[in-house]
């Protein structure tokens, strides 16, 4: 299974919570909106990514999981 991160840019209002909770993957641009360093979430960070998605005040951070070869 592989998981990727996606931002709904309409919902996002730049609270920046995601960059606080998942700094390995999310940086903020000069206006405070998230920039994904890489959309693929390493397995080791999946739990943190889920927590960040749940913490987003506008629910703009999405985790899209695709069933892959394994599991």
């Amino acid at each position, binding site marked *: 299974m592989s998981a990727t991160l996606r931002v709904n840019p*309409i*919902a*996002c209002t730049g609270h920046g919570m995601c960059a606080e909770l998942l700094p390995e993957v999310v940086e903020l641009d000069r*206006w405070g909106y998230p920039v994904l360093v890489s959309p693929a979430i390493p397995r080791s960070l999946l739990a943190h990514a889920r927590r960040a998605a749940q913490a987003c005040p506008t629910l703009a951070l999405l985790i899209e999981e695709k069933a892959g070869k394994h599991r």
Partner: protein
Amino acid sequence: MTGTRPMPAAHLPRLLAGIADATGLRGYERRYGPLPGSGRLITVVEAAGLTGRGGAGFPAGRKMRSVAARPGRKAVVANGAEGEPASRKDRLLLSRLPHLVLDGITLAAAAVGADEAYLCVHGTEGGLLRRLDHAVAERQAAGLDPVPIQVTGIPARYVSSEQSSIVQYLNGGPGKPTFSPPRPHERGVNGKPTLVHNVETLAHLALIARHGDRWFRGTGLPSAPGSMLVTVSGAVTRPGVYEIEMGTTAGEVIVLAGGAAERLQALLVGGYFGAWLPVETAWPTPLTHSGLKAAGGVLGAGIVIAFPAAACPIAETARVVRYLAEESAGQCGPCRFGLPALADALASLAFFGDRGGSAHDVEALFPLVERRGACRHPDGAAQLGRSVFRAFPADVHWHRWQGACDGVRRPPLLPLPGDEEREWDWG
């Protein structure tokens, strides 16, 4: 096809053949023949190799098949909201040959199994709306459209002619782009799978249904068959809408439009989501999606603007990017803040040179807006901006060190809608 002569395959114009005498239904049927049946239409359109004429160039038949394959009733939307300020072809078709487009809508609705059909144009264009209502009424009296075609005025904003915006507007929203999925062909108007085609695409469809795929391929290139409408403006002797064979070069199109009215330095091809090409690069480039891509440009909706040597492409681009910034729906942060910043930096470079590092700032802003919106609005503006740096490296260098050039004192050349044609607030 009783009573009408078959249209010769290699002969142009095709779409525009009846421009002088086929605006009314009777003249139209005399010129183009009666509405044909829609049996096997999707297969024929696929075999014809028709691609969407709204800008993206997606295969029209494949789009229809993916909508038709979904369960339940569908909806068809004809997009005639010509948002590109330099494009006139859709307005020309709708005002002079409305029945070609309306035939296309009815044929597409039957082919995909739709029970709702819409024709969308800018709500600010009252005259056009009235003419279309009249054309629809003529057809109603003749019993031509089993699915009634609803002529609808949508907001006259650049981003409102994007397909997800139109669907959102028809569903009662303000007409702003939406986050996907779902895409319109999955869930669109009233939740139904929705086919959105540009009005020129539908006009071609109406002719393909009459004459077949081999006829359609009788002009153009094997890889890009048929004809297309282009809108030529700027420094040419006879600006206007022309129907050309696919594969005609940009230079031939300038000649068709009467030739250059003054010495040219570049062509802007593809509209304001398009790209600048130096005139020597553009001239031999065939106006096809692959031809323009290879030259570093985009075909878009067939817009060609001839740009004089004495004008300033940086100042003109800054002005257009300002317009695109104002036309943003303002929903996505990177577009809402990035496009005004990009317009500021380009204007600063054009008028004040590299004070404050504006050239560097422009280039730093591209990746901050690209692929970061729900729709392609920021990407289009960035594409136009990036092409300035590719097409005019010497001008950029000159502006960096010298500031404003003589060209900035010329009156603006790239067309923008007047204030009275624009809508500034969202309803």
